[in-house]
């Protein structure tokens, strides 16, 4: 919403640069007046902490030894980037992000199609049913999945003992592979509704005439999907992928609850948390947070380049 409010006057502004009328000017001013307060709040709650974290990351600073604080330049970054633990955490984070986003995109699209095509009476019920997991707090769902798979109290091992490889003696949270499997499953279960809802919004933007025209021209179902529907909802797909990728990259709750980073399941957010909050090493922890932030920026940049969509333009088109 803010993007629309922010950008619209900007674009108009740019277009009107050649010959600015009074009206254009006052509209631009109104735009700033409307968006300005939100913009200032955004700066206060996002830009300030980011700059503070960067500043802190240049110091050797432990919360329980405030007097020993000393400037160390980029040394914290050198420590972090030369540590295999950081790269392992980054690898696990990227793995979880890629796997969950790909599966959720496919699954979410299928669900969106079902919701889109469902007969009107069922649509409301279906949407509610699909949205339920997304309404559950992540920590709660993490505990639910943890207890379901737990070797002592879980029921999964008993229900699925007939599946090869699963027995009542399988400790899901004792190895990397099985731990990651449960973590990823829980993520997918919880956030697929979010993706499918965004995709559903995109689907409903596709003009039915285009699809009908393609059908008249003899296009198969697959051709209509890949040539007509998907290209017309590129902006929605990008928003879905981008939001979910950023979300997945910052994964914390599931790992924290289920393994707390044991068996090679450490992720970047958890590493930053354990360093800043657990060890109270504000400097080192801030360095990890800044690197995490840079990764997030990189993801945004790649997504925007990859989809070649102007987010503001896309939002305008959708709005």
């Amino acid at each position, binding site marked *: 919403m803010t993007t629309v409010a922010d950008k619209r006057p900007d674009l108009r502004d740019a277009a009107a640069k050649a010959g600015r009328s009074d009206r254009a000017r006052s509209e631009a001013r109104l735009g700033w007046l409307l968006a300005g307060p939100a913009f200032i709040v955004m700066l206060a709650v996002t830009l300030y902490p980011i700059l503070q974290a960067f500043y802190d990351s240049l110091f*050797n600073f432990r*919360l*329980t*030894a*405030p007097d020993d604080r000393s400037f160390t330049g980029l040394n914290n970054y050198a*420590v*972090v980037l030369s*540590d295999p*633990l*950081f790269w392992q955490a980054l690898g696990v984070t990227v793995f979880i992000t890629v796997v969950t986003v790909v599966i959720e995109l496919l699954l979410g699209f299928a669900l969106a199609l079902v919701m889109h095509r469902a007969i009107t009476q069922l649509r409301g019920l279906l949407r509610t049913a699909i949205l339920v997991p997304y309404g559950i707090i992540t920590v709660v769902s993490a505990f639910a999945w943890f207890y379901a798979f*737990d*070797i*002592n*109290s879980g029921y999964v091992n008993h229900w699925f003992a007939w599946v090869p490889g699963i027995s009542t*003696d*399988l*400790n899901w*949270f*004792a190895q990397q592979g099985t731990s990651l499997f449960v973590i990823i499953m829980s993520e997918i279960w919880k956030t697929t509704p979010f993706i499918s809802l965004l995709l559903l919004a995109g689907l409903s933007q596709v003009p039915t005439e285009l699809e009908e025209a393609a059908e008249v021209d003899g296009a198969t179902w697959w051709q209509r999907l890949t040539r007509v529907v998907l290209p017309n909802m590129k902006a929605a797909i990008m928003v879905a992928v981008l939001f979910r990728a950023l979300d997945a990259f910052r994964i914390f709750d599931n790992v924290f609850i289920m*393994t*707390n*980073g*044991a*068996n090679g399941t450490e992720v970047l957010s958890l*590493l930053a948390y*354990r*360093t800043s*909050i*657990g*060890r*109270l090493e504000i400097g*080192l922890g801030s360095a*990890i947070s800044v690197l995490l932030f840079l990764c997030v920026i990189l993801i945004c940049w790649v997504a925007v380049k990859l989809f070649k969509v102007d987010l503001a333009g896309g939002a305008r088109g959708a709005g």
Partner: protein
Amino acid sequence: MLTWYINPDDGGQAEIAKQCTEAANGEYVIEVSVLPRDASAQREQLARRLAAKDSSIDIMSLDPPFVPEMAEPGFLAPVPDDVAQRVTENVVAGALAGATWDDKLVSVPFWANTQLLWYRKSVAAAAGLDPAKAPVTWDQIMTASQDQDKYLAVQGTKAESLTVWINALVASAGGSILENPEAPADELTLGLESPAGEAAATIIGTIGKENLGGPALPTEDEGASLSIFQGDKGSFMVNWPFVWSATKAGVEDGTFEQALLDDVGWALYPQVTEGQPSAPPYGGINLGIGAFSNYVDLSYKAAECIVTPEHQAQYFATNGNPPSNTEAYDDPAVTEAFPMADVIRESLELAVPRPQTPYYNEVSTGLQQTWHPPSAVDPATTPTESTDLITAVLRGEQLL
């Protein structure tokens, strides 16, 4: 108005707060405020607030390993000499050590915890052991549970309980995790590359590799240990005394048969070397007084009221947390609720605290990183690995 930050319990601390408020005749009112369930989360919250000089923290229930970290930067108000003298009278050795930093008493001992060896009498008898008569060794209980095709219940999960186990094993073998716990971070030397460290690694590694703890071992905490011990595969377990009240409650509400409770025996923590007394784990809660509190004197007065032997006995009988004051063990309510009270007291005299250093969190987490999972622990490499990691982390050269 004094605020007492407490760890979650069964309401015992709130009850004591009420009684002390009444006894104070309006001089002060103690209000309790509950901290997170997890000990490390309690530490995080208190450390962050104290670093910001929070004046609302008057009294806090502190886990002993974190006392030095709070004491070193001056987060705890100094204990007045007369108070120190009164609150250390008749206090068990382990609890005194845990309340001290840099040879000074910095917190008030409240209750003291220790682990015992719990065993199923039927299994021990079948294996020809009687731990109540003569102390047993780790080798004996490992062999016995293997011969009887049962699981040994120990805490192998990657958490504080693993450090508790490692520390007890190293100390029982006559060693110590830190050789100079009071040194600054970059001068700390570890004592793991020693016969004691190797002995500890041998025990944990063998239990892990030979599956003596069962498949749950890598994620097994104190609660999970208890479930295994209560189950068909239960044999021997090292755990805190809460297991007794929990099992008793389970029998009362019909989850377990009385026969299970009758089958439970207890003894001192197992020895590593035969004939050398064991060094059982030490835990519990001390009371720290916030250095930024506006009512330090009143807080110490309130703390003295909280830790009276009567309150400690009442807390033990109702909440299952053993007293640090030996006098409290003579209370008839105590012996009725905990028939093993004498063994607990004896164990507390032998108990050895975890390393007393302001960098405890680094040491403990470093151990957990390198000694987990138990099946990967190797006496030839693990002590060296953990020494290298912890040393590098303390020098700021590596992440944890």
